[in-house]
């Protein structure tokens, strides 16, 4: 097994390899620094780490020697001068019967978090940020541009560079935003068939797609439903936790959402809810697709949004091979007295190997599509991301 697993944790970047004598996790960079996401650019081989320093801000760090050494990218992501977003904050309101009110205000945008990186078939590099920016580099990170059509989208109040816009946003905040309640882009889905196709997912807004290279954007939430707004099928307000496209069967996209699991076989034109609460498949954060079979996917379910722990205190991975019509609970080798929570970027599949890490610092790997598991470590820092590369 020569596959390498790149693991981003709250305290550094780890590489997990197996030389035949078992899986070993080794710190390869960023000791003590929060690493939100680590991935390898399939076009260039460059490793990218998305860092969140507690004191020193969000950074992009890269390695061009496969992880032997790392350096801050000379040009870091910055919001352009004048970039603003509409924020909604709860505040203590003595005049309210309820003691609190919502304050809508326009705030200057500054980079709070580099959250996800994606790679286009044409070499484009995309970074999704908090607050809600999609940054694009077409020179391997030499320069970055905020995608303005998405930033100025009518769902976010319109063009706030030019004026006050329409004063209303449909993009709500996420608690993942480093202490400030601001929206975030946590999923970037490119299309191996079409460099002009880019899809992003935003917590408490939904899925948004462009098919013209980012010039125009539209919601992609048909068939979605929710239980946290009066209109369950409203265009906006959906809460995808993560979406992923099957690379070998690209019309097939999976979505683990706050209110269930959704599946699309038509490039997200429509979604179908495929939750199976009786099988423990409903709430969770990550999802992973197969290399070639769009109907196959893996999840690590959690127990409801109220609890966010393992279902019944036992860890399992759920797998479907029929587009979500049925789910298998994969428990062989996983602890059955466990309370692991797995974050949205911390599950991955490649070539039949599946890996995931949890906030309790556990890392598990399967080399047989999830049928059996081994524990790599019980002692890592909290795991933020797991990717093969």
């Amino acid at each position, binding site marked *: 097994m020569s596959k390498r697993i790149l693991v981003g944790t709250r305290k550094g970047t780890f590489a997990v390899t197996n030389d035949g004598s078992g899986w070993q996790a080794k710190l390869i960079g960023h000791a003590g620094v929060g690493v939100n996401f680590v991935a390898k650019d399939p076009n260039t081989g460059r490793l990218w780490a998305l860092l969140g*320093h*507690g*004191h*020193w*801000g969000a*950074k992009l760090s890269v390695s061009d020697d496969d992880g032997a050494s790392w350096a*801050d990218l*000379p040009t*870091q992501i*910055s*919001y352009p*001068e004048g970039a603003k977003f509409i924020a909604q904050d709860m505040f203590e309101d003595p005049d309210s019967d309820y003691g609190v009110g919502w304050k809508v205000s326009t705030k*200057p945008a*500054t*980079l709070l978090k580099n959250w996800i990186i994606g790679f286009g078939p044409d070499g484009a590099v995309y970074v999704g940020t908090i607050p809600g920016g999609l940054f694009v580099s077409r020179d391997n990170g030499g320069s970055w541009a905020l995608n303005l059509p998405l930033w100025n989208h009518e769902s976010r109040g319109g063009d706030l560079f030019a004026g006050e816009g329409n004063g209303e946003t449909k993009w709500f905040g996420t608690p993942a935003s480093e202490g400030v309640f601001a929206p975030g882009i946590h999923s970037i889905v490119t299309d191996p068939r079409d460099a002009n196709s880019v899809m992003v997912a935003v917590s408490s807004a939904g899925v948004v797609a462009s098919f013209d290279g980012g010039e125009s954007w539209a919601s992609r939430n048909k068939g979605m439903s929710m239980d946290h707004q009066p209109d369950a099928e409203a265009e906006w307000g959906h809460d995808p936790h993560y979406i992923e496209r099957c690379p070998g069967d690209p019309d097939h996209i999976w979505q683990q959402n706050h209110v269930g699991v959704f599946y699309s076989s038509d490039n997200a034109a429509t979604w179908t809810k495929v939750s199976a609460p009786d099988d423990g498949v409903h709430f969770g954060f990550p999802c992973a697709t197969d290399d070639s079979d769009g109907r196959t996917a893996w999840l690590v379910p959690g127990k409801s949004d109220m609890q966010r722990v393992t279902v019944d205190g036992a860890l399992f991975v759920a797998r479907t091979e029929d587009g979500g019509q049925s789910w298998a609970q994969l428990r062989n080798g996983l602890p059955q007295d466990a309370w692991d929570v797995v974050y949205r970027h911390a599950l991955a599949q490649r070539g039949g190997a599946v890996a995931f890490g949890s906030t309790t610092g556990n890392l598990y790997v399967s080399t047989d599509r999830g049928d059996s598991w081994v524990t790599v470590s019980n002692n890592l820092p909290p795991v933020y991301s797991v990717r093969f590369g």
Partner: protein
Amino acid sequence: MIDVVLTRHLFAFFPALEGQQICVEAATVAEAVAALEAMAPGIAHYLIDETGRLRPHVNAFIGNAMIRDRRRLTDPLAPGDKLSILQSLSGG
């Protein structure tokens, strides 16, 4: 000249500065940050955000007094001042 004292935490990211006596020409804190950036490219991004504000968990002192303008860093510096740039603590 302004003597600049940096938290040792920053030397993890800018090791060339460690052990150096850092002196800059600057009439304001903002100018001092710009001078530091010229000396150690990338360091400004560690201290201030893209609007020029001091990051929330970074503190700056002139002598023993915390600077007043965290937004634009206009606090004046006089020759011989000591500017300390430190990480803030929240206890523990």
